C-alpha cells in the first residue's frame, strides 16, 4: 500500500512539474508589449504603491521573465515553492495575502454546496436505479440532464430574475446588504449567509446532475452483480439487500469521487462568484485575469493545478483503500 502511495505521489510531482512549466511558458510567451502595457496601466491606478518599473523589476526578479524560458521557470519555481508569489498588480497587496482574504468565502460556499449536493444527489440516484425505467427514474434522469446542460450564467440569471427581481427575496449580487454595518454580529452572519443562497443554488443546480447520474450508474452496476442476486435468492428483505449489500458497494466509487473533489472546495467557483460578486478566490482571480495581473493569475493557475492533482491523488488512494482488488493489481 505504501509503495502504491509513494509511486502515485512521485508521479504527481512529476506531472506538477510539467504542468507548471506549461503554465509558465504560456505566461512567458505573452508579448512584452502587453505585459508592459498592463503594468503601466495598473501602476497608474489610484492607491498603487509601486511604479511601473518597480512592478517589472519585481516580475523579473521573482518570475525570471528576463531570462530564457527554462532558467526563468526554475527561478519562478524556486521562489514560488518558498511561498513567494510577489505582489498582485491589481490588488496591490502580496498575492498570498489576497488569497487568505478571499479563500474562506469560496471554501464556505463550496462546502455548503458539496454537502447539499451529496445529500440530495446520492439518495435520488439510488432511488432512480432501484426503480429503473419507472417514472421516478425518467424524471431524475431528465432533470439531471437539464442541470448538466444549462450554462452557469443562464441559471444564475434565471435565479436572479425569479428570486431577486420578481420575488425580491435576495439581493441580486454582492455579499452584504445595505445596512450590513448596523447589524449585530449574528445579524451580519445571517446577512452574508442570505447572500450566499443564490450562488449556492446555482452551483447545486449545475453540479447535482453529474453526481446523480454517477450514483445511478454505479448502483445499477452493483444491482446487477451476482452477490445481489444471491442475497435476494436467499430471501433477504429488499431493504437489507439495498441498504447493506448494494449501497455499501455503491459507496466505493462514490467516496472515490467525493474524496477526489474535496480539494476542489478551495478552487472557488470562477463564474458563479463573478456573476454574484462573491469576493471569493474565483472572483478575485477572474478580475486579475481580465486585468492582466500576471502574479495573481500565475498563482491561481498553480493553485488550481495543485488542487486537481491532489484530487486525483486522493481519489486513487481512496479507491485503493476502499477496494482491495485495486491494490492487488
Amino acid at each position, binding site marked *: 500500500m505504501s509503495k502504491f502511495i509513494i509511486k502515485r505521489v512521485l508521479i504527481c510531482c512529476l506531472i*506538477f512539474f510539467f504542468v507548471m512549466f506549461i503554465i509558465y511558458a504560456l505566461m512567458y510567451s505573452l508579448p512584452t508589449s502587453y505585459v508592459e502595457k*498592463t503594468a503601466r496601466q495598473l501602476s497608474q491606478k489610484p492607491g498603487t504603491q509601486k511604479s511601473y518599473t518597480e512592478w517589472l523589476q519585481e516580475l523579473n526578479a521573482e518570475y525570471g521573465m528576463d531570462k530564457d524560458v527554462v532558467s526563468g521557470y526554475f527561478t519562478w519555481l524556486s521562489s514560488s515553492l518558498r511561498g513567494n508569489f510577489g505582489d498582485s498588480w491589481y490588488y496591490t497587496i502580496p498575492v498570498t495575502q489576497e488569497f487568505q482574504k478571499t479563500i474562506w468565502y469560496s471554501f464556505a460556499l463550496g462546502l455548503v454546496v458539496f454537502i447539499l449536493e451529496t445529500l440530495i444527489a446520492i439518495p435520488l440516484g439510488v432511488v432512480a436505479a432501484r426503480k429503473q425505467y419507472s417514472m421516478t427514474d425518467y424524471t431524475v434522469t431528465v432533470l439531471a*440532464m437539464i442541470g448538466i*446542460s444549462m*450554462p452557469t*450564467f443562464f441559471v444564475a440569471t434565471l435565479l436572479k430574475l425569479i428570486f431577486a427581481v420578481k420575488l425580491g427575496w435576495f439581493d441580486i449580487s454582492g455579499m452584504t446588504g445595505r445596512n450590513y454595518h448596523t447589524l449585530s454580529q449574528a445579524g451580519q452572519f445571517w446577512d452574508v449567509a442570505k447572500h450566499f443562497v443564490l450562488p449556492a443554488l446555482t452551483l447545486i443546480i449545475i453540479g447535482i446532475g453529474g453526481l446523480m447520474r454517477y450514483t445511478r450508474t454505479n448502483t445499477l452496476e452493483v444491482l446487477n452483480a451476482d452477490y445481489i442476486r444471491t442475497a435476494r435468492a436467499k430471501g433477504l428483505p429488499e431493504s437489507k439487500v439495498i441498504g447493506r449489500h448494494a449501497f455499501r458497494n455503491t459507496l466505493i466509487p462514490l467516496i472515490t469521487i467525493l474524496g477526489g473533489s474535496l480539494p476542489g472546495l478551495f478552487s472557488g467557483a470562477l463564474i458563479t462568484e463573478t456573476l454574484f460578486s462573491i469576493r471569493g478566490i474565483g472572483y478575485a482571480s477572474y478580475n486579475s485575469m481580465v486585468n492582466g495581473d500576471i502574479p495573481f493569475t500565475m498563482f491561481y493557475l498553480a493553485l488550481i493545478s495543485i488542487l486537481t*492533482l491532489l484530487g486525483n491523488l486522493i481519489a486513487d488512494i481512496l479507491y485503493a483503500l476502499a477496494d482491495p482488488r485495486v491494490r492487488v493489481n
Partner: protein
Amino acid sequence: MERKSFNELLKEQERLEAKKQDDGHVALDDAKRIKVLSPGQLVFKRFIRNKLAIFGVCVLLFMFLFAFIAPLFYPYTQTQVFFKYDYVNSDYATASLRTDYTNHILNQDTAVDSFVQRNITSSIESMDAAGLEQTVVTAENGTVYALQKLGEGIYALSLNGGSKVAALSASSRIGTYSLLAKTMTYDGDDLGGGFVDALRQAIAAGTTGFSFNNQAYTWELGEKKTYTVTSAGASVQYTGAPLSGEFETAAKAALENKASGFTADGTAYALSKTSGETAVVSIVPGEPLLLSSVYVIDTTDNTKTVSEELTRQTLLNAYSGQPFEADGQQYEVKSENGERVLYTADGGEFGLLTNFVVRDASGKDTLELNFKEAALKAVSKMVETGVNTGSFTYQFPDMQTHFEGTEPVLAAAANADGSAKMRDTEIAVSFKAGNYQMTCFQWKHLIDISAGPSSRHTFGTDTDGMDILARMMYGGRISLCVGFIVVILETFLGVIMGGIAGYFGGWVDNLIMRLVDIFYCIPSLPILIILGSFMDAMKLGAYTRLAYMMAVLGILGWAGVARLVRGQILSLREQEFMIAAEATGIRVKHRIFKHLLPNVMPQLIVTATAGLGSVIITESTLSFLGLGVKHPLATWGTMINSVTSSNENIIKYTYIWIPVGALICFTVIAFNFVGDGLRDAFDPKMKR
C-alpha cells in the same frame, strides 16, 4: 408422365413455396420467421426506441434548420441595422440677434487693410456712438479709408477721396509779459512787436481779451505786475485756402466737444489727433470697397438660396430705393413697416433683411419665414420680460410613418378633404450662451434600438438596432460550427495520440499517458479567460479571435479522447479477432484502420456527441463574459450578456435572453440525449 427439366421443377417448387406463404402457412422452423438485421440496423432500431434520444434528434434537426437553412430564407442578416421615424423632443432651431458686422467685399482688386477689416465692428460702434454718418479709419500703413453709413445696420468702406484741410489747435499759453521790465517772454514762437503793442493797449484799457491777427487772446494778472497771456479758443491753421466761417465754428465746436467729426457746408469732416495738433480731414467717400452689415437675407421661400452676389447688391441698394441687378435678375428693396423687403422684378417677395438669424439644428437656413417671425416674436417677448425661457406654438404638417420593406417612410398626413393636416406644436425657447435654443417634438430618423417584439421583428431588435431573430440564427450557426470544429480537432488529436499509445504500448504509451495527465491538469477555463483578455488588449478581429479560441479549446480537450481510445485499443488488442487478424498476416495499416478503429468508433461517436454540448457551453460562457466571440458576430452568449447587465434589463428584456438561453439549453440537452441514446444503442449491455 411428362418429364420435366430440373429448371422447371425448381420453378414449380418456388411457386408452391410462394403459395404457402400467401396462405400464411409458415413452418415453425422456417428461417423466414426470423428477421435478420445487420449490426447497423440493430443499432438504429435500438436507438429509435429511445424516446429521449428521438427528442434530442428532433431538437438538433430543428437547430440545424434554424441555424443553417432558415437564414437563407430570412430577409435580415446578423449585422443589418434597422431604422425608424419617431416623434421625439429634440433641438429644432437656433436663433441669435446678430450684433457683429460681417464684411462683404465688393471690389476684389483693391485689398482693404486686414486690421481695418477685423476692427470694423468697433469702428462702426464708435461712429454710431458719436452720432456721425461718416468717419475715417486710418490703417497702420497710413491709408485713410472713409466709413460711410448707408442706412441702419449697413456701412460702406471706401478709400477716402478727401484730404487734410486744416489743423486745429486748442487754447494755449503764449508767454508772460512783465510790465515793470516791459519785456515779453514767449513760450513758443515770437509773435512780433505788434503783438506786445496790442497787449499793452489791452492792459491799459483794462479789457481782458484782445485780438491780434484774427486770433483772440486773454491775459491774467499775476504777481509783480506779470501778465500771463493765453490764446483764447481753438485756432485753425488752414493747409490750403481758408474755408468759410461756418467750417471754422463747427471745427472749433467739435474740438471743444471732443467730437470725432462734424459736418460743414454739406461736407463731412473727421478730426484725427496726431502729436500736438488735431488734423481736420474732409471725407469724400470713393467707390465702396466693402460693405459691412449685421443683416442677412431671410428668403420667403426657404428652398431658395441666396448668392453672395445678391447679398452684396441688396445691401448696397437697401436704402437707395433703386432697382438693381444681381445674377442677371432685377431686384428692388422696398421699406415696409420698418422692414426692408426684397422684391424680384415681377413683384414677388423674395425675402427680407434681418439681423435676427434663425437656423435649423444643423445650422442650415431651411426654415420657413413664418416660423422665423414667430420665433422673433417669442424672443422679443423674452427680451422684454427679461426671462431666459419662453415658448410659442407653431403649426407643423402632421406626419405619419410606415414601412416600405425594411425602410421607414415618412409621409404627410392628410385631412378627410385631402388638405394637409397640421399639428400644433409647442416650441420651447431657452437662452443659452448668446443663442436662443428652440426644441420641440418632431419626426426624426433614428436607429430602431431595443424595439419590442413586433410583426417586423419577431423578437425585437437589440441595442444596436439589429434583428434579434436573425442574430439568434447566425449565433446558432457560430455555436454549432465552433462545437463541431473543436470536437473534430480534439477527436483527431485524441485518436492519433491514443491510438499510438494503445497500439505500441511500452514507453510510448507511458510518455503519452503522462502527457494526457498533464493536459488533464491544465485549467482550461482560466486559460481561455486569459487568452480572451489578452486578445482584447491586442484588439484582434472577430474572426481571428474565433480561430484562436477554437484552436485552444481543441488543444486543451484532446486528453480525454486519447485516454478513451487508448483504453479501448488496449482491451481490443487482446481479443480473438485481433489475434486472428495478426495470424492472417495482413498489414499493420489495415489492422489498425480496418479492424481496430471501427471498433473504437461507437465509443468515439458517443464521447464526441456529448463533447459537442460541453464545447457549446464553454463557448457561450466565454462569449457571455465578453471574452469569446465579439461584436459584430452574433453568438448566443453575447446576446444574453448584452441584455442582462442590470436589474431593469433582466426584467425588460426577458423576451430576448430567455429564448436565447433556452436555445443553448435545448441544443446541449439534445446533444447529451443523443449521446446517451447512441451509447445505449451501440452497447445494450452498458445500458443503465
